[in-house]
């Protein structure tokens, strides 16, 4: 279907129309230039620990800094603390010790009333998509904008643009249960993208998907990162991590045990089965 001129113009200007073709530039790691101002940490953890009320220690003395241009894989076994780290970032959980900064603001002691603004900094996707089953694809994506920016003009255009980015512009009026798992995750990504977040968090986004579909989702995230959005992806997907070769932060028993710029899922020489 032909779209209006303004949108077509926006797409012509777009250096990389995401979701349709992927260039190698998007997949290859970019050189790190210390002088670039965008390399200042957008996320930093300083001695962060998290112990749940039942006594389970999920994180111990975590120190890390993530820069604006980073694409980070958080890897580790189930229960290692990856999801806790993501939950601490969006303040779904509160750290038991240490300090966490997001874009220079400390979030550890942030009052509840400021949390909505913090969460609008992020685009978040989960393994189970978290879509509204009784709402259409377009309504699911629009929901994020209606919540964060009520009264926004050109809502429909923005929703269509986000769905075009993830390659689902033809499925606006479908319901989630009419889509495949990969398509549902794309809808979740469109919803996370539509308000143009500066940081994209993905907690096991490929956990329920087959290898081909997983690879499609990761390509999408790489292209989102290429547009200047920080991406943090917690994953178990060894193939994807080893193929992409981006920054890898490995967590074991709640501690950061490895942080490599072009890392692999397992350490060089680590035994596998």
């Amino acid at each position, binding site marked *: 279907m032909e779209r209006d001129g303004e949108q077509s113009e926006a797409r012509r200007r777009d250096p990389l129309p995401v979701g349709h073709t992927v260039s190698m530039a998007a997949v290859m790691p970019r050189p790190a230039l210390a002088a670039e101002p965008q390399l200042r940490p957008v996320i930093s953890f300083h001695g962060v620990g998290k112990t749940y009320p039942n006594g389970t220690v999920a994180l111990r003395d975590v120190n890390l800094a993530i820069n604006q241009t980073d694409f980070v894989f958080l890897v580790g076994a189930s229960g290692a603390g990856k999801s806790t780290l993501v939950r601490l970032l969006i303040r779904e959980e509160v750290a038991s010790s240490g300090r966490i900064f997001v874009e220079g603001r400390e979030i550890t002691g942030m009052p509840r009333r400021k949390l909505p603004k913090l969460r609008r900094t992020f685009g978040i996707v989960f393994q189970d998509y978290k879509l509204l089953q009784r709402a259409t694809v377009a309504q699911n994506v629009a*929901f994020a904008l209606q919540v964060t920016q009520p009264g926004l003009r050109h809502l429909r255009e923005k929703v269509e643009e986000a769905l075009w980015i993830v390659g689902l512009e033809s499925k606006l009026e479908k319901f989630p249960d009419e889509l495949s798992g990969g398509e549902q995750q794309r809808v979740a990504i469109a919803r996370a993208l539509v308000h143009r977040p500066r940081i994209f968090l993905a907690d096991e986004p490929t956990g329920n998907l087959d290898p081909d579909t997983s690879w499609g989702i990761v390509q999408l995230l790489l292209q989102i990162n290429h547009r200047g959005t920080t991406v943090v992806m917690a994953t178990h997907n060894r193939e994807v991590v080893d193929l992409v070769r981006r920054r890898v932060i490995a967590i074991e028993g709640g501690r950061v045990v490895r942080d490599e710029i072009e890392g692999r899922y397992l350490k060089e020489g680590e035994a596998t089965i």
Partner: protein
Amino acid sequence: MRMLASLRFAVVSAGQNFYRNLAVSLAAVFTMGLILLLVGMALLGTHMLNQVLTDEQARASNIKVYLQDGVSLASVNNLQQQLAADPRISAVHFENKDDAANELRNHDLGVALDAVGSNPLPASLNLDLRRLADLPDIDAMVRTNAIVDRGSKPTSYNPDVIGKLQTLIRVLQIIAVVIAAVLGVISLVIIMNTIRTAVYVRRREIEIMKLVGATDWFVRWPFILEGVLGGILAALLAGGVIAAFYKPAVSNLKSTLFIFPLTYDGSFLSALILMLVAGGGALGAFGSYLGVRRFLSV
């Protein structure tokens, strides 16, 4: 502009959610409707009881002070003025012997009166008292007056009947208050749980709203409006049932319980429906507020 847009989103979401979860919404409306029907019936029952008691009290608060035959009109006038000045008495009316006879005739007892031949009935001063409780004192006071009949029955005061009536009124009022309080507490608990179940079904939606950065009030408003909508619908349902059955019930009870002077009170029915609508809306809003609170801690 943003406020207006938020309000519009809340209203549209409330309507959409009500419709999308129609089964749960209707279950909540019917449960609330049933409870409000019970509350409405209890309120109406209390009102009808009050009507009867007020009527009985008004009737019981009358006392006839019988006067001796042949006393001067001046002395009657004097006593009448003395009683009218008493703050406990609201009205004093002189009833002469002929009036007393006519009243008896009005009650179809004229035949008995004609059989006697002359008029044996005494003249009286009929007093209306403000409070039933003052009857014994007034009775004791008038008995000492010289012009009052010294026969076996100087006044119409019957301490047994009045004492029993006063006890009955107190007991019935306590029972009505207890019933209303128990029903009120039960309805609040049931309504809150019903709404909490309706909210529980949609906890995922709340979680998503919170994760994309919605404020607590932005999440709450659609649920609260939906609660108000459900509460009002339930109240209209209950009010409709009560309105349909009130009049037939009154005429039916009137014929079976003829000793109670029951009457249909249309203005109270309107007030009751308004009270149910306001109460239903408030309960719905309060129940939703509490129901959502549990899921807002994300």
